[in-house]
């Protein structure tokens, strides 16, 4: 996968977000085996300790499971992935509403504008 890291936020936080995004988008499927920490770290050009920290956090929230002998897997709990997806969508929308607010639009105006643009976008 392609990793994009900016430099003003902790790396492990960004790794967590990007692995979550891969799971939500279905690039990593439920039950898939994850590459080793070292391979993932090399791929993202980050410190293996940092990758380990990100994976541990994903394990803690249950998105990843570790099997002592055979490595790390994406959870097979599709309900959980759905929930993550919904949460992620919500955050995107809240962020969008916030940005629109900064431009001076009230939430109702934003909604109307949004519907209008979606409609005209469809016609194209």
């Amino acid at each position: 996968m392609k990793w994009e890291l900016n430099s003003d936020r902790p790396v492990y936080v960004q790794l967590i977000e990007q692995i979550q995004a891969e799971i939500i988008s279905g690039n990593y499927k439920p039950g898939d085996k994850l590459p080793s920490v070292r391979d993932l770290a090399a791929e993202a050009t980050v410190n293996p300790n940092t990758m380990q920290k990100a994976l541990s956090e994903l394990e803690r929230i249950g998105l990843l499971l570790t099997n002592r002998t055979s490595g790390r897997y994406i959870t097979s709990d599709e309900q959980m992935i759905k929930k993550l997806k919904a949460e992620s969508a919500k955050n995107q929308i809240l962020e969008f509403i916030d940005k629109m607010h900064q431009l001076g639009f009230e939430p109702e105006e934003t909604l109307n504008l949004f519907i209008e643009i979606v409609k005209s976008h469809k016609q194209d």
Partner: protein
Amino acid sequence: MNTILECKSLTKNFSNLTALSNVNLALERGRIIGLLGPNGSGKTTLIKLINGLLVPNSGEILIDGKQPGTETKKIVSYLPEKTYLPEWMRVSQAIEFFSDFYEDFDQKKAYEMLERLHLDSKKRLKTLSKGTKEKIQLILVMSRKADLYCLDEPIGGVDPAARDYILNTIISNYNENATVIISTHLIADIENILDEVVFIKDGLLTLHTSVDDIRTKEGKSVDTLFREVFRC
């Protein structure tokens, strides 16, 4: 056991110049640490003290609890600023040379890395470019299974694409028990692989913290912080 390097009130003077002044520092195993500071701040002096090439005027430096000497050289792998291998040597001879010198040198690993970089081991060093020589030197240094790697400006002379390869070589070849110290002023290029940073300014240790801490607390990159701290 977990501390690999300890400096206690470490001071080094060159006639009337104080290169390092009262440095107290403890580094743990299993970390990648950036030793950062502007030119002439004392980075190389510290690395030379670790390797026993300089002797402190006062204070103490301990590697795995021991003073620099024959025993510590067995566990410290050092990449100096300048290459020191004789120009007439072939790459394969340099590998033999390292193999003779260091018990922990892994020839197989060295040849694997050469192959990955498409470097011909039969070539003589004098026929290679500066950047290629630096790559070979780094391969030699990283092919040891050391406890402490001291890399003095490992990415200074190579192109950006090779930089990525070198960083990958560093992160995929050090073992979990080892610590890597990287001295550089090219911070933006390496800050994603660092656990911790040590800032040195005019021979004084001004900051020792984790990269995550800088980003969380200050909301800025190490590179940005460096530019602020060392603004000219």
